[in-house]
């Protein structure tokens, strides 16, 4: 009788351990609304790559802009999120949330758009005009100023205002603004709607510039490194999938944005999907954010070492 009890208890312990191992690990994910830069996340969800890695991804938030997503990180509502380098680095530097950037989500994929019939032909012609950006300290804010400086212009000569990207196309059409800079698919949508044309695309401003990253809540990273690694494996697999299955990637882009095929196809053609960020590129961002006064009193090298942690992604890639 005693042996049966012991055997039954051991079996129970074994079964419950197996269940614990087999039960999917939860990840609360956030990304930006209609931001095709985050296609890898959507591909991984659609194709079941996260499930294959044994993680259960719950969409904990879809945000209109990076700073909103950082507020979600600050209130500990997200474990992992896709968002721009600029808002995530700004948030860490200004102490609003403790996150780590563990992989790149995309490079390039933004553009400055003017009205189709506009007389603006070069960046220099933006002097005295009104240009909309999605928000201060966004990647696009940074790119616009970089483009203006490269053209030898003082950014103060341009009236830079903040607008939500979905409203930019209407504002451009209605002559409220003379130009806007936004992430794909908004520039492509302006083109396919026949309202705008690209003045300058972001690779022309800064070739290969990093754009969005995969950010992890620092405590989640410390406590669940295996889950983060599994997530990144799915992320890498999604990137490969996009490269090898462009048509299906477009289908998934349409599914998650609700936009038409022509726009999504055009938009994806302007985005680079790869997962390695270069430390020097991130340093350039951070130096610029310092210069603009959005972040203060940090030492760039030390900060970037704290912000960027590519150990896992390097491991996975080899």
């Amino acid at each position, binding site marked *: 009788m005693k042996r049966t009890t012991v055997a039954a208890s051991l079996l129970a312990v074994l079964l419950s351990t197996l269940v614990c191992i087999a039960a999917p690990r939860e990840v609360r994910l956030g990304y930006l609304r209609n931001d095709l830069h985050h296609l890898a996340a959507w591909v991984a969800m659609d194709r079941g790559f996260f499930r294959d890695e044994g993680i259960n991804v719950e969409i904990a938030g879809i945000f209109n802009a990076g700073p909103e997503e950082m*507020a979600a990180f600050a209130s500990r509502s997200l474990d992992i999120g896709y968002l721009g380098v600029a*808002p995530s680095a700004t948030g860490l530097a*200004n102490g609003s949330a403790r996150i780590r950037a563990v992989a790149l989500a995309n490079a390039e994929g933004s553009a400055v758009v003017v009205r189709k019939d506009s007389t603006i032909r070069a960046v220099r012609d933006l002097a005295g005009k009104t240009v909309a950006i999605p928000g*201060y*300290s966004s990647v696009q804010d940074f790119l616009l100023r970089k483009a203006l400086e490269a053209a030898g212009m003082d950014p103060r000569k341009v009236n830079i205002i*903040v607008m939500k990207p979905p409203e930019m196309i209407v504002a451009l059409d209605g002559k409220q603004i003379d130009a806007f800079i936004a992430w794909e698919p908004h520039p492509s949508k302006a083109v396919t709607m026949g309202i705008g044309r690209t003045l300058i695309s972001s690779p022309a401003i800064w070739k290969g510039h990093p754009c969005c990253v995969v950010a992890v809540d620092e405590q989640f990273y410390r406590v669940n490194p295996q889950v983060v690694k599994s997530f990144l494996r799915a992320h890498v697999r999604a990137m490969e999938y996009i490269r090898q299955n462009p048509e299906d990637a477009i289908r998934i882009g349409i599914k998650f944005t609700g936009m038409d095929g022509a726009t999504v196809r055009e938009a994806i053609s302007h985005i680079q999907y790869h997962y390695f960020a270069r430390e020097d590129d991130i340093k350039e961002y951070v130096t610029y954010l310092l210069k603009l*006064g959005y972040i203060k009193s940090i030492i760039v090298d030390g900060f970037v070492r704290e912000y960027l942690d590519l150990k896992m992604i390097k491991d996975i890639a080899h």
Partner: protein
Amino acid sequence: MRYLPVFSVVVIWQVLSLSGVIPGNRLPSPVNIFLGFTELLTQGLPPGYGLAGHCAGSLKRVLGGVGVAIVTALPLGIAMGYWSRAREYLNPFVEMVRPVPPLAWVPIAILWFGIGDRSSSFVIFLGAFFPVLLNTIAGVLSINRRLIESSIILGASKKALFGKVLLPGAMPSIITGVRIALGIGWMTLVAAEFTGVKSGYGLGYMIMTARDIQRPDQIIAGMAIIGIIGYAMDFGIRIMENKILKWR
């Protein structure tokens, strides 16, 4: 002595922040908020856009919207107060539009007026119009009917009736309406500016920028500035009220 409770709260708050009980990234300490405020003063937000400019931008929009509200609601209110027919026919319109929050009008305002000062002034106008209108009507209705009847019997022209009897008689109520309108207008303004401001100046816009660069200390400093200006405007109206209604 009056300010002792407020002072104590601030001190306790600072102590709790210093000890880490209140996390600094969710609620900055009073000292950090003050430092954020000095940065707003010295450097501006975004850097280069000074605080004075933001205050001026917002005040312009609010005073514009509330001004138009007063100029339109006053005569309409007196007419509706005096003529019951006018009240009967116009009330349905008033009661249908009044419950709609001014902020719900923002997308329409932008469609009609674009993203400049006019759309935010329009939203403020909508918020300010109804308190002035309703208080004017109530003020006229509260005038002793005998006074009105006597004026008519004694041969007062419509102009004299409106200008020398109805308007002064309704004035206490009208001023209350203006105070409420200014308060609502000031509150609505900040949210209206969240949607975008062409000139780059405005207190709501400034708070939105603080949110963008993730500085909750400056968000709260901005909120405090908005509160102080709102209080100052109300104080100003109360002084004016005492002057205008000296006869009371």
